[in-house]
């Protein structure tokens, strides 16, 4: 009986998106995470709420395993991915993106005592990244450095990687700037962000490729929010300045 159930979803989704289910990694501060009351908060959360309001749709945030984001989206378990989702060529094959709303760099974090000052110093070193994050592709793209480093360790999350960095088993960590800055701010003086990075990339909201209607609506809402300054306000609230693009 599953076909009957699935059919109305397909039929109704493009017409009126009365409710948008947004998939996110709820362990991804400061974009989306849980506060002490166990409620979802974060920059992307606020942004998405505002956008939904403008579309006139109800919004539901559904925590997903970030590793399974494509399956969640295309299995119609969520309608949009909105959680610091980097726009990449590979992902474009499976996901339709809005235009970028944030610019992000893949920064390199080392300990304060570290002798590593440049990308070149990573030669022969052990470098960590979060598995499934866009840092994986960013490092892979820089073939020269990728070849030079001794080992690329893929961690389940960035905190484990940072702890390993502190423990000295890891020499450097490549991570999204927004995330990296969040953590380094928690332990002032312990970490240093290198000047060089693994490139700039852009965050966008992802929807199913056949869901053109939702994409258009989200795009319009985002554009409006950028223009009337409400996006800037949210950014200032979370990052202390407006970094929205």
């Amino acid at each position, binding site marked *: *009986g599953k076909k009957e159930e699935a059919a109305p979803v397909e039929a109704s989704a493009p017409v009126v998106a009365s409710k948008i289910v947004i998939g996110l990694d709820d362990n991804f501060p400061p974009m989306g*995470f849980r506060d002490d*009351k166990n409620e979802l908060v974060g920059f992307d959360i606020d942004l998405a709420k505002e956008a939904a309001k403008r579309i006139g749709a109800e919004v539901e945030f559904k925590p997903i395993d970030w*590793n*399974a984001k494509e399956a969640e989206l295309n299995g119609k*378990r969520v309608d949009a991915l909105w959680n610091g989702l980097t726009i990449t060529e590979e992902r474009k094959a499976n996901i339709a993106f809005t235009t970028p709303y944030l610019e992000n760099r893949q920064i390199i974090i080392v300990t304060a005592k570290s002798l590593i000052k440049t990308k070149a110093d990573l030669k022969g070193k052990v470098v960590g990244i979060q598995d499934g994050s866009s840092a994986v592709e960013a490092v892979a793209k820089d073939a020269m450095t990728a070849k030079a480093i001794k080992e690329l360790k893929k961690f389940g999350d960035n905190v484990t990687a940072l702890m390993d960095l502190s423990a000295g088993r890891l020499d450097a960590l490549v991570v999204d700037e927004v995330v990296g800055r969040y953590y380094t701010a928690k332990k002032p003086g312990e970490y240093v962000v290198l000047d060089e990075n693994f490139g700039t990339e852009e965050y966008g909201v992802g929807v199913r490729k056949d869901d053109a209607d939702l994409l258009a609506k989200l795009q319009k809402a985002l554009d409006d929010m950028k223009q009337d300054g409400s996006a800037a306000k949210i950014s200032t609230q979370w990052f202390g300045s407006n970094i929205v693009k």
Partner: protein
Amino acid sequence: MDYILNILGPLIAGTGVTLKMFLVTIVLAVPLGLALALARISRFGVLSGAVNGYIWLMRGTPLMLQMLFIYFALPFVPVIGVRLPDFPAAVVAFVLNYAAYFAEIFRAGIQSIDRGQYEGAKVLGLTYAQTMRRIVLPQMVKRILPPISNETITLVKDTSLIYVLAMNDLLRAARGIVQRDFTTTPFVVAAAFYLAMTLVLTWGFQYLEKRYAVYDE
């Protein structure tokens, strides 16, 4: 200390998820396991063989894969395919998996009952079903308490696997806070919670063992 009080909220919520998962699994997997065990020892070769294969498959592959399969792949399977939300999907996977483990324990327990008990019941005129219900299964319970207790304690911790479906059980709640606050204190608190749950279970099973100790064998 204040910090611990602050994070207690999400951790208690996580414990709720863990307990809910645990209880629902136990309540469903035990009867299913018993049914599988009875099918496994039945005289119908086909049934017994099928159950045997099922048990092998369930015990031979990781529970995580089973869960991912039921969540993501099942909707595309013809006929039986159904798209389950996360909690029901996790429950189905856990129940199917643990029922296989329980079935093996039940089977061993049933088979450890002396043939004399069956013969004693038979000469009194009890049917096979009556013999099972009134004579064999009640005696089995006593014998399987230790392995069931083990499996149950394992289940408490196994529930944390539901993180792959992004549900916030105790362990994942703790990881969430660790990532938010960049400190390992939540892990220590979570460990204490797990120990407490294990302790309660251990006591529960000790009580049961004592109750069943009124008769020796």
